C-alpha cells in the first residue's frame, strides 16, 4: 500500500463516480495488477460496455458489449 497519501476522499466531484465509462472485466472486479499481455481494463475492452449501457440492458453488461465478448471468447456476465 502506498504510504504517501496525505489527503483522502475524491480529488474532484464525487458525482463523477456516477458516470464511469469504459468498464471491463465483467462480473468480477477487473484485475488491477495485470500483465501487459492482458487488455488494460480502462481501455476499450469488449466487456462490459459502460455502466449506463449495463443499466439500460438490465444487466451488468451492455448488450452489444456482451455480444462482442461472447464472439471473441472473452468471459462475460449474463
Amino acid at each position, binding site marked *: 500500500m502506498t504510504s504517501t497519501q496525505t489527503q483522502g476522499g475524491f480529488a474532484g466531484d464525487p458525482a463523477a463516480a456516477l458516470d464511469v465509462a469504459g468498464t471491463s472485466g465483467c462480473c468480477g472486479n477487473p484485475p488491477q495488477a495485470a*500483465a501487459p499481455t492482458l487488455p488494460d481494463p480502462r481501455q476499450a475492452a469488449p466487456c462490459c460496455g459502460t455502466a449506463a449501457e449495463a443499466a439500460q440492458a438490465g444487466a451488468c453488461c451492455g448488450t452489444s458489449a456482451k455480444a462482442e465478448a461472447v464472439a471473441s*471468447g472473452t468471459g462475460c456476465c449474463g
Partner: protein
Amino acid sequence: MSTAAGRPPTTVAAVLGPLLGAVSGERMAATVATLAAEPFAGRRVGSAGGAAARAWLARHLADLGAAVTVEPFTVRFVPEVYAAPDVRWHDGTTERRLAFGRDVAVHLASADEPLVRHGGLAVAGAGDPAGRWLLVPPGMTLFDAYGHAYGATGLLIGRGVDADGWQYTMLAGPNPGPLPILTLDTGTHATLLAAAGAGGRLAGWLAGNTPIRRLDVPAANLHGAWPAGAGPEVLLTAHFDGVGDHPGLRQPAAADNGSGVAVVLEAARVLTTQVPGQVRLSVALLDAEEAGALGSAHHAAQLRRAGAAPLVINVDGAGDLHRSAAVEAGGPAHGLLAALDQAGRYTGLPLAAGPVASDNRRYATAGLPAVGIGAGMAGYHSPADTPDRVEPATLTAVAKLVAAAAWLATRCGPPPP
C-alpha cells in the same frame, strides 16, 4: 458537516475516532486466511466448498449478534473443469507436455471431450481442417474460426497470461460450442502457429482433451440484520464465492473476494459494538457473483418487491491498494457519495471514480443508491490469489472507510431526491 478548515466537528470526531480505532487488520487477515483455506476449495457457487464457506460465515454473523437468514436460488450452466486436461505437443522431434493453467486451459466455449484426441496441426482458414487441431490466428474471432473448422479435431486459441504467468479463470461467458477448444499462452500459440504454417512433418501434432461440463447448481445468499437503528438503512455487501479450485490447482480467492467479505464483517462488527443502535444496518454476503452477479440480482429483485431502498455499499477487492480506491456509483447515490467522500477525507483514503464491475451494478440497476468500492487484488482468478498477497493495511483502510461512510450516511439522512 465539515468545518471551514475541512475538519469534521468535534462531535463527529468523538464518534469516529473510537469507531475506527476498533478496526482490526489482524482480525480481517485471519478471516481472509480462513476463507482462502483448502476446506473451502475456492468457494465456487454450488460446490461443497462454497456451502461450507457459507455455513462458516453464517456462524460468524450470528456471533456478531445478527439475525441470520439464507436465501436460496438456482444457477444454471456453471462451467466446471472436472479434470486437468492432458495436453501434449510434438514438434516433429520432441514431445512436450503443456502445464494446465499456464501453458494451456480449457476455453469456456469448449465442448466437453473427456478423451484425448490426437491430430496434426493446421491454421484455421488455410488448408484441410479435417482431423486436425486448428490454430486460430490472432484477430480471427471464434465464430469465424468455426466457419473454417468443418471436421476439425478442435481449436487452439492464443491467450495472454497475467503477471504471474497464469491464464486466469472465468465462470461467466459463452455457452459451449460444437468443438473442443483449448487456449494456449501466446508464446506457445505463436510457436505452434509457426509450426503449423511450415506444414508437413515440421507441423507436428497435438494430443489433448477438454474435460469441461456445465452444471445447474444450488446457490444461496446470506443475510444478517441487526436491531433497527435510526435513519436510512445501510446495506453492506460483498460476494463470498470464487471461481473455485481446478483439479490439481488451488485457487484460494483470497483478495477476490475474501478481502471484501472480511471488510464488510469488520465494518459491521465495529458499527454494532462501538455505536450500537446508531446505524440501521444489514449485511448481504452474496453468492454467484463470478457466475454473472446472480446473487445480487436475486437480492435486488427481493428488495424491489419489498419496497425497500437501503443505501448499498459493495466491496469487491480490498487487497492491493494503489494510490486510490476505485468507486463506481449508480442509482440515486449522490447522498451516499457525499458520505463516502467525507469518510475518505476523514480516514485519509483517496478515492477515484473508476469501474467496479460487481454486485453494486445489480442494486443500481434496480434503482437503489449503490456504490462499489474496489481496492485492488493481486492474482485475479488464479492460483496466485493467496492470503499473503492481501495487505492488512489495505483491509484496514477500506474497513475504516466503509464503517465511517455507513455512520455518516445515517447522520446525513436520506439522499436528496
